[in-house]
């Protein structure tokens, strides 16, 4: 037991070092060549030999890198919680239509409500409205999927229903798009492409507390999640208050998936793949390790995806969606093949 704890401790240390390295490397990479020592200097002293570098780091790269860390951690932990609650290895925010729900929320705000206000009024409360709508959208789909999963145990059926709900929300979004004026439509289409760099500093100040609150709630419910591994009946007989715990977990999941989707657009496959990688590395089902592990591995994966997206040419970055999909899909395929209950 002592040995196991030691191994875990080293693993966390190692992951943390990788995270710092990826963090610095992601700050380093970009069209302007800023030497690494300068970056560190800017981070700690806000001074540099060339003033424009300060602006590049502080206003562009740093918000993007922090967004990557938040998005990676949030999507991974929300995926982890869903996999446990649904007792389904293929559950994840994008697979079950949760991100689609968030998209619907965003679409309703951006395409629907915003047309009733002047652009300036909208910008005043816009960011908050987008986050709240996205979280409500994802929460609603989550509740719907959960209600179905109480009656249907079969994993494939639930996944198909998730895809159906996702398609239905996308259909509604398309209808909204059809009736939208060109400028708002353009803003929405750009949003759907998903981007870490598009998050402004003021949006980051909304995203940050949302993600921290969501992660904090997840850590709070780690003991409950352990009991839920055995299913709701066993959890109940072990003394879990099912109503409270459902609320906590759904609140956390919707907040994490919703807020990230609100500002970064739908980012796929991180939420489903990272929890599995974490389980594989830590070889445990204890959620306190899995949550912290998913936070670290999710952040590193997201930073790595961002770095990969910048590699081909320094002028144009690849869409972050494509990179996470290409990274995540092999893992999902591996899960499907490994899981004998599905095949």
């Amino acid at each position: 037991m002592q040995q196991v704890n030691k191994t875990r401790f080293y693993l966390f240390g190692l992951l943390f070092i990788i995270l710092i390295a990826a963090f610095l490397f992601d700050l380093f990479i970009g069209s302007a060549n800023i030497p690494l020592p300068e970056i560190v200097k800017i981070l700690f002293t806000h001074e540099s030999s060339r003033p424009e570098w300060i602006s590049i780091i502080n206003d562009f790269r740093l918000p993007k890198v922090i967004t990557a860390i938040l998005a990676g951690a949030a999507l991974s932990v929300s995926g982890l919680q869903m996999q446990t609650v649904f007792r389904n290895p293929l559950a994840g925010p994008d697979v079950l239509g949760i991100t689609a729900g968030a998209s619907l929320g965003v679409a309703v705000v951006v395409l629907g409500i915003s047309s009733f206000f002047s652009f300036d009024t909208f910008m005043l409360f816009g960011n908050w409205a987008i986050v709240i709508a996205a979280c409500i959208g994802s929460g609603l789909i989550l509740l719907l999927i959960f209600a179905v999963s109480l009656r249907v145990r079969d994993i494939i059926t639930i996944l198909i229903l998730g895809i159906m709900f996702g398609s239905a929300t996308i259909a509604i979004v398309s209808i909204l798009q059809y009736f939208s004026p060109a400028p708002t439509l353009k803003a929405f289409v750009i949003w759907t492409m998903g981007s870490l760099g598009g998050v402004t500093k003021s949006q980051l100040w909304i995203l940050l507390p949302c993600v921290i609150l969501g992660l904090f709630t997840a850590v709070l419910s780690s003991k409950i999640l352990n009991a839920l591994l055995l299913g709701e009946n066993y959890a109940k007989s072990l003394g879990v208050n099912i109503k409270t715990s459902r609320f906590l977990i759904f609140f956390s999941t919707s907040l994490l998936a919703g807020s990230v989707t609100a500002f970064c657009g739908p980012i796929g496959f991180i939420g489903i793949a990272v929890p599995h990688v974490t389980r594989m590395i830590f070889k445990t089902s204890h959620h306190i390790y899995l949550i912290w592990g998913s936070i670290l591995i999710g952040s590193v994966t997201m930073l790595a995806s961002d770095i990969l997206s910048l590699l081909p040419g320094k002028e144009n970055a690849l869409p972050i969606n494509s990179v996470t999909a290409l990274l995540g899909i092999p893992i999902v395929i591996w899960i499907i093949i490994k899981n004998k209950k599905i095949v």
Partner: protein
Amino acid sequence: MDTGKKIIEIHNLNIGYPSKTIFSGINLSAYQGELIALIGINGAGKSTLLRTLARLQKESSGKVTIEGNNIHQYSIKTFAQRVSFVSTEPVYVSNLNVKELVALGRFPHTNWLGKLDEKDSAAVERAIHKTNIENLAEKNINQISDGERQRAMIARTIAQDTDIIILDEPTAFLDLPNRYETVSLLKALSKNENKTVIFSTHDLNIAIRQADKIWLIQKDKIIEGAPEDLVLNNCFTHIFESSKISFDIEKGDFTIPASMNRSVKLTGDGAEYLWTVKALERLGYLVSDSNNENITVRITRENNRLNWVIEKENCKFAVNSIYELSAILGRR
């Protein structure tokens, strides 16, 4: 006789769902240290009753008390410290080893983080020791057999340290040796740890031999009593509606009587006599010792070799096995 402390009392309980009452007017009791088997046909409401006792399902009316207090007076946590439950639902979780599964039993005793202190770890070790699964402790629960997993689930209830353990068909997926082992483990828990163990089962044979008390679901009522009392009062006879199945009061088990429209006179003794009777009954013969039968079978032993001499319709056959005997007598 020391009857011990009455721990569970069920008063006029109606169980079921809002739309449908499954069983009404249940009055039963359980004492400390009793091993109780709940018996009834499929769909009789065994699971519903056990789930109601475990507070996983709301009763329609009536009440269940534990030491005089209505079960709903207990908080979720204190109830989990009194009653533990093993359902029929099999548990498959990747990356969960037996020890971690057992440790989940400490849930109602640990803090919000679920961290095990020395007392908790000791309870987990003890539960693993009691159920004799030390060699499995580090194994993944997906890699062990059904019988081993059931032992691990029972170990979890021991770690939960409740005075009442409820199990829904704990022997359902198990082979015969594992069924006996599981029930004898439950019996040991009730006797050595003074726990009240209530389990549902279809294994009437095991239940009659091991349980202190049987809760028997009949057509319109649930009765309780020592297995032997229920046997002597002919209570088992009527639990199946089908007339094809009957309860053999001497064997203490159900039999499917063949229609005995033929009879045979059998002479012989010892074990071979008893087993020949069984074979003849299986073939639909009533065994008698009257001399008026058309068919006679005589068992003889020559040079340590068994012979069955059959006389039928003026023909005489001698065979060396019951298989050959059934081949001759089985013909219509």
